[in-house]
């Protein structure tokens, strides 16, 4: 994927292996795409000719960046397994995943070939809006639909936590582990881990989580339908992990459709999932806004460590120093706010008992 001049021929040959019903496959245009933050992305125009009849379509390639330039390291085979399962289940709208080069021998890097969505992302749409209309409701419904998928529907290739407690303890431990392995000593992360361990929320059933739910990962097709992309962080976890990550990401790079009216957003979400208000409320979303962030901040920080050690480079990675410090700022302030709310509730309970 990184040798642009070679890619039209390589891609055509790769597609031909999967389409022996087509006489001739030509790639007439190939260009890298901006917007694929963690993976290399490219768009290709493909022409199929059989019996003198020609059809054309656009495809998207999603592959690993060149060595030493990764923002995060994730597994394409894992992502492909998730996409195949979601395609078979057919309950979550996604662009169809067509083919996978599992070794990189055909496309130069491990890469997934999928349908191109003609519309833009939800991010690019709502950035231009002053009134978000029904998008907050639709987004709450979309996250809710994902969280209706149960672990028994998901492939063995995904890690299946033994219990909710085990999942949450693993996530808390990931804060400590990330800090311990980093070139930086980070007292803020250590404080966060201690606070999270002392303030666990009520449990929910484990479900499929997208792992990186955000408006740039929701595409909108020409009919206005939402399609969810970028499943590299998908996992079995507490559904509120996604709500929390959506909240913190959208605070950093808005607009934030949850924050616009949290109670309405959560009411819609609860209606889709059947979860209760004791488990899904602003306080528990606040908890997971912090807890779940390490799933992505951890890999990002690991790449910044490599940067510091001279093993990685690139402006996209260097820019993530800001992501880490943005997290510090927001998490410390969020803990202050949540602790005050927890203390107030404890006081109120003490007064009534």
């Amino acid at each position, binding site marked *: 994927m990184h040798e642009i001049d070679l890619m039209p021929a390589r891609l055509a040959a790769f597609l031909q292996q999967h389409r022996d019903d087509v006489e001739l496959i030509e790639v007439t245009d190939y260009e*890298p*795409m*901006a*917007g694929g*933050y963690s993976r290399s992305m490219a768009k290709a125009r493909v022409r199929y000719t059989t019996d003198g009849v020609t059809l054309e379509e656009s495809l998207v390639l999603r592959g690993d960046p060149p060595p030493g330039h990764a923002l995060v390291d994730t597994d394409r085979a894992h992502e492909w397994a998730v996409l195949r399962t979601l395609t078979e289940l057919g309950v979550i709208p996604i662009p169809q995943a067509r083919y996978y080069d599992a070794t990189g021998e055909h496309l130069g890097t491990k890469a997934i070939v999928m349908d191109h969505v003609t519309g833009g*992302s*939800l*991010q*690019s749409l709502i950035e231009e809006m002053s009134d978000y209309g029904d998008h907050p409701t639709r987004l709450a419904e979309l996250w809710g639909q994902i969280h209706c998928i149960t672990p028994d529907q998901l492939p063995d290739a995904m890690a299946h936590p033994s219990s909710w407690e085990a999942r949450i303890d693993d996530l808390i431990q990931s804060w400590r582990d990330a*800090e311990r392995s980093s*070139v*930086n*000593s*980070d*007292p*803020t992360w*250590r*404080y966060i881990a*201690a*606070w999270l361990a*002392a303030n666990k929320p009520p449990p929910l059933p484990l479900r499929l989580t997208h792992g990186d739910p955000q*408006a*740039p*990962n929701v595409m909108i097709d020409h009919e206005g339908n939402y399609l969810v992309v970028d499943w590299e962080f998908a996992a079995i976890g507490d559904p509120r992990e996604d709500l929390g990550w959506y909240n913190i990401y959208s605070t*950093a*790079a808005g607009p934030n459709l949850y924050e616009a009216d949290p109670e309405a957003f959560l009411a819609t979400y609860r209606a889709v999932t059947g979860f209760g208000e004791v488990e899904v409320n602003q306080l528990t979303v606040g908890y997971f806004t912090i807890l779940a962030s390490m799933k992505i901040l951890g890999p990002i920080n690991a790449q910044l460590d490599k940067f510091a050690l001279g093993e990685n480079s690139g*402006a*996209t990675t*260097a*820019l993530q*120093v*800001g*992501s880490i*410090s*943005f997290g*510090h*700022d927001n998490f*410390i*302030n969020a803990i*202050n706010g949540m602790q005050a709310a927890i203390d107030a509730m404890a006081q109120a309970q003490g007064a009534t008992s």
Partner: protein
Amino acid sequence: MIVLPTTPQLLRDVRNELTHTVAPEVHGAVARVALEQIDIILEQCAVRCADEIAWMAEELTEMLAYADDVVEATGDEATAAALVAARDNAAGTLHLDDMAHDYTLTSEALSCAIEACMADPDQSDLLRRGVEILRLRRGERETVVRANWRLVGRG
């Protein structure tokens, strides 16, 4: 050593050249995103290099004093050990690499001290003081260094 123009002045001049001379000639989407990211990083470097030695020096003093107070109040062994490590292994110069080394060691003492206070309900005042170091000293300076940061190139 020629100290003027300062490093921030030089970096901001490079930003200006990139924005007004180079960027108009760049038309590829990926390259334009990279240029915008580079502009943000250059401004962050300009802000950071102006003050980071002074800030680390101030914070080293503050962290050591806080950890000393926590050891005195709690007798926490991890904090005491981290303090010994920070003092015994300090490079003790103003060179950037040495300051970063000393800052990292001393931050471990701050981490241990805050954890000790979290585990002891009688140390709520000391805990509050430790969290204020995170929030008002480190956090506010990190916010300044973020400068014009934004996640460019997504979506």
